[in-house]
């Protein structure tokens, strides 16, 4: 008794057929690498490298995960990465949200000037060395602050947030709050922030993923190994794998070192891919509903 059912025409059926074929194809394209990585992480590296393992695990072994779980450096890196991501994202939000809100208010004196100055930084960049010197002279080198304070805001995110404020928060609401006696600060904290859950979620995700994946700042600013984030630890293990143990001006000691690193990398390579992306994959579905909404909202202007 399906009243909504409308008989499909032949053309509709053909069209839907195409849609399903195309979707299935797209699904396979994105799904295959995921399955491959999961299978490879529990297969014997020899089977993976020779191409015998191409979809389902072969010669199943959990050796890779065992090594990963026992590796202190990876765990310490994991803890540091979680810390940098949580703390860094917190700092990002603390700076991004008020800035964007201030810039969104038409009655903000000097708004044009500040916006212009912010935008300028998109085109004029200090470059690596001057930035390094600034960070150094601020005394941030080799501290956790070097990981969270430089890049405390990303201009692009400020713009997105500003557009969100401009387009979703009615001016009338602000006026009403002011008439009721709210100061600007109270207005921001009590009214604007509670209304901005979607954009906060989106910003947290943007910044968070950025922190999670970053290794370059750590490489440049950190000397103490106990502060290394996960990505840098993994990079140390995996990059050497790319080097052939046969390049010129090699000494016996180096050849053996690289060989042992290659063996290690071959075993844990796919396992660490999963271990290091799992948290992001787990968090993503919870933020996803905001994510879609947030990006949509940012894109439409009244």
């Amino acid at each position, binding site marked *: 008794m399906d009243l909504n059912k409308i008989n499909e025409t032949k053309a509709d059926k053909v069209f839907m057929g195409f849609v399903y074929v195309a979707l299935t194809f797209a699904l396979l394209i994105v799904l295959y690498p995921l399955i491959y990585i999961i299978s490879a992480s529990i297969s014997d590296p020899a089977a993976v*490298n020779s191409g015998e393992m191409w979809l389902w695990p072969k010669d199943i072994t959990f050796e890779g995960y065992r090594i990963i779980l026992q590796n202190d450096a990876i765990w310490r890196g994991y803890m540091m990465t979680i810390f940098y991501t949580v703390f860094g994202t917190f700092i990002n939000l603390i700076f991004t949200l008020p800035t964007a809100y201030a810039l969104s208010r038409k009655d903000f004196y000097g708004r044009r000037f500040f916006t212009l100055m912010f935008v300028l930084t998109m085109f004029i960049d200090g470059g690596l*060395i*001057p930035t390094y010197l600034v960070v150094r002279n601020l005394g941030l080198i080799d501290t956790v602050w070097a990981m969270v304070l430089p890049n405390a805001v990303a201009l692009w995110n400020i713009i997105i947030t500003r557009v969100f404020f401009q387009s979703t928060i009615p001016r009338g609401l602000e006026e009403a709050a002011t008439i009721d006696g709210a100061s600007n600060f109270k207005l921001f904290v009590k009214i604007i922030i509670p209304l901005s859950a979607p954009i906060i979620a989106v910003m947290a995700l943007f910044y968070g993923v950025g922190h999670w994946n970053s290794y370059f700042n750590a490489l440049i600013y950190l000397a103490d190994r106990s502060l290394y984030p996960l990505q840098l630890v993994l990079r140390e293990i995996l990059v050497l794998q790319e080097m052939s143990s*046969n390049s*010129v*001006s090699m000494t016996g000691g180096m050849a*053996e070192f690289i060989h042992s690193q290659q063996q290690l990398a071959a075993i844990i390579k796919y396992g660490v891919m999963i271990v290091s992306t799992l948290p992001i994959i787990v968090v993503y579905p919870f933020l996803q509903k905001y994510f879609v909404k947030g990006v949509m909202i940012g894109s439409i202007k009244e």
Partner: protein
Amino acid sequence: MKKLLLSFSMVLVLLSVLVACGDDTSDVNGTSEETNGEVAVHKEGFPIVDEEIKLSLMAPGVGIEDWKNMVTLKRYSEMTNMTFEYITPPVSDFQTRLNLAFASQDLPDIILGAGTGNLTPGMEVDYGRQGVLLPLNDLIDEYAPNLKALMDENPEIARSVTTPDGNIYSLPFINNHPTAVWARGPLWYRGEWLENLGVEELPKTVDEFYDLLVRFRDEDPNNSGQDDTIPLTDVQMNSSRAWLMAAFGMKEWGIEEHDGEVRYAPMTDNYKAYLEFMNKLYDEKLLDPETFSQADEQKKAKGQENRIGLFPDWFSFFTTGQPEEEAVKDPMFFPLTSEWSQDRVVPANPGMVRGTFSLTKYNEHPEASMRWIDYWYSTEGRDFFDKGPEGYLWEANEDGTRNPLPAPEGFESPEEYRATLTPTYGITPPMLGDLVEGEPRSDFDLFIQAETEEKITPFSETPFPLVYLTDDEQRTVNTIQQDLSSYIEQMEARFITGVEPLSNWDDYVSTIKSMNVEEYINIHQEAYDRWAQN
């Protein structure tokens, strides 16, 4: 109005950037200038200084243990009364950090273990001239008796580390190890295959070599009953090239020297003959068809499946995956002769790696630093830094020989344990590389030495000495080299795979000529002549 404001603020920003650049240099090195330079340095014995001094040291870290926890360095600090702040960026990205340190002038007192790949000869010349790196000549004479003795013994050392202005800016790793002559990993035959085919004697000419590869292909040498053998494999010819080119009378895939004459090998007729030969191997499936597309791990996978007959690697068991004891059955490739080269030639390693120890201008104690490193060049010191103090990796027997100890729980191998004891693991340290006195040697060690002495040492020739180029020369060379090497790399693959027929050889040579190769050769010729005069 808008435009005006924009351009005004642009100017403002630019100005502030310029101003910032201008006065930045004066206070940049504020941090390292606190100790007074007036510390008496003992010329011999330990400690080196009476009053404790602290220096900063930058070196590539292999990521297994922090340098400050390494037992050798801790003990050496107690002996010398010198302590260090160790800055050890990962070896994979060391170059980035080192370049940043030079560019920002945020330099440590000592740069150790960088090697030519990171602290290039060009950088030595450049930063030496600018005074950023200290000249070490006088310091060596006064404070480095062990190194001095080595240099007196082998004049080649001083010749190779002295830059065109007459100064030495970095100390080398000096290799006296049995494998020191290896320029790269050798080619290895799969011993089992030779046995199955009843091959008594390894090929000594190109034709015999070809015949053996054909047998590898056709006669099922791995007894698998299948047609699955690959006679010769490599990853992009990177390692086997040198051995096969040598059969056609070339020593280097680039600049090489023959009797004082410098030439560029990839444009010679010898090279054409090499390409022809390799093309033949490729066509007949004697050379792995995946040579130009596979990665190292795929090559190793084939080795572990016992599918390859001849392959390059540092040691054969890296590829075959067999235990070390079995690897003594895999013989090393014997250098070949051909109508192009009646004499056997093997390109050899100069036995040194430069750029392993430099002092920067911020170093307040260059004398003490030199004495500190000199110990590494003594027999006692090198053994200490190689294998650590007694009780960790070894214990002494009554007759003075060493008894190796097993690695403690939690370490996969003694090598991995060694990496937690001493910094000389995985980097090129400024020291004397040699066998440790009184340490027992495995059958495999002896096998490697015997193979090297039979097949490499008698035929070894250095392709081109370790020279320094002047600033200008270096710049020109860099520009030319970049185009040149990517072109010949690409063309080598095309010629061998037959995508480009060898009838296009003349076009190829004229393209190389149009890339300014003449100047490239001339610069190297001049550098060689300077070197030869010293």
